[in-house]
């Protein structure tokens, strides 16, 4: 009977204030989580687009070297200038070697991470393809930059009616209490600092991780790592707009928990 009422009236379900808030939060969580596969897909296409131009410079170089060979043939056409004939081939060889080195470096760039991952534990990304350095970096950069922008906006919006921050710890507290509540609906559980510019924030139930689990915990931890990039960017964005330049690293050792390490640059 209860199931009939809930299924038959989705409108009342949505209109209910508490449940609509729940829907909002769930949608936001899903969006936060879905960001990562999106960035991974974009990184894949970026990687694919990198692979394609790798032949393209060589073809362009071959087209550039083709005129020189053409110049060589034209120079060989007049048989009198025999001394001019050996010069163009040297230029073509230099260009060809440069293109060959560029192509080898390009192939190295994609191939060596593949080889190391093959030699190692064969880390696979979420889409089942091997995880290369380019892929990982481009996912990281993309998500981190997105988070940075979001963090700048968030801090602008939510630091509005606050009294002025007096020191770094004040800013970090604002981040842990207010902003974390805004984004993740809970506060940071633990904040440690060495009072010399290093802060370690521990969230023992990090919200995006709350429903993640796999049969193999180590694999789950590795798979969850990209989901920390975006929060990293948020932290960095918030801190930078509040006047602290910092590097942020995040890691997780056990799944619902996440640790963020903030190193501020002024305190070197």
């Amino acid at each position: 009977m209860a199931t009939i009422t809930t299924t038959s009236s989705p409108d009342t379900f949505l209109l209910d204030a508490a449940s609509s808030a729940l829907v909002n939060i769930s949608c936001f969580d899903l969006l936060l989580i879905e960001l990562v596969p999106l960035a991974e897909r974009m990184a894949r296409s970026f990687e694919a687009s990198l692979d394609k131009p790798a032949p393209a410079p060589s073809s362009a170089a071959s087209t550039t070297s083709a005129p020189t060979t053409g110049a060589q043939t034209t120079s060989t056409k007049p048989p009198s200038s025999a001394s001019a004939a050996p010069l163009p081939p040297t230029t073509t060889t230099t260009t060809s070697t440069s293109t060959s080195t560029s192509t080898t470096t390009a192939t190295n760039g994609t191939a060596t991470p593949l080889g190391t991952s093959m030699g190692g534990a064969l880390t696979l990304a979420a889409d089942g393809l091997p995880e290369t350095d380019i892929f990982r970096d481009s996912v990281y950069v993309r998500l981190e930059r997105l988070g940075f922008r979001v963090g700048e906006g968030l801090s602008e919006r939510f630091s509005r009616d606050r009294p002025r921050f007096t020191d770094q710890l004040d800013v970090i507290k604002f981040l842990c209490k207010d902003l974390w509540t805004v984004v993740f609906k809970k506060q940071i559980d633990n904040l440690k600092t060495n009072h010399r510019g290093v802060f370690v924030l521990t969230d023992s139930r990090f919200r995006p991780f709350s429903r993640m689990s796999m049969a193999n915990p180590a694999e789950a931890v590795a798979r969850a790592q990209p989901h920390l990039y975006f929060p990293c960017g948020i932290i960095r964005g918030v801190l930078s707009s509040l006047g602290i330049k910092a590097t942020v690293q995040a890691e997780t050792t056990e799944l619902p928990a996440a640790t963020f390490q903030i190193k501020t640059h002024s305190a070197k």
Partner: protein
Amino acid sequence: MTFLLNSCLDIFDLRARTKTLDQDLGLLQAIDERLAAYGWLTNTGIKFIIVVDMMGRPPPPDEDKRRFPAVVGLRDADLKPAFRAVQTAYIQLMLNPFYSPDDRTPLQIANYGGQSPEITSKRFINELQRIGKVWAPGVANI
């Protein structure tokens, strides 16, 4: 005008050190009998400056003069609603996903030939103009 604004920046620095409680920095400087510059420093380090022309403007003919009595002095608190409105407009601008604040880094400004790129968002400019028109001493919220 840019000279005036730049001269205000130093006062911003001085005030920010002494006045740590509020975002409102009050009257920065009075340039002459007419112009007065008021400052507002957000927690994120954004500085707003409002320059008030003390001559005032002629009241609209259809409005009752008693509603706007002649103002002799200007208190710092009078500008608070205006600054709040400006800050709201700026927050709206920051929350616009198509606005990229990264274009305003010192490196970019150097690339632009020393000129800082202005905010070109039409919505932001319109909002600021609206604030300038609506504001008068004693207006509580804009």
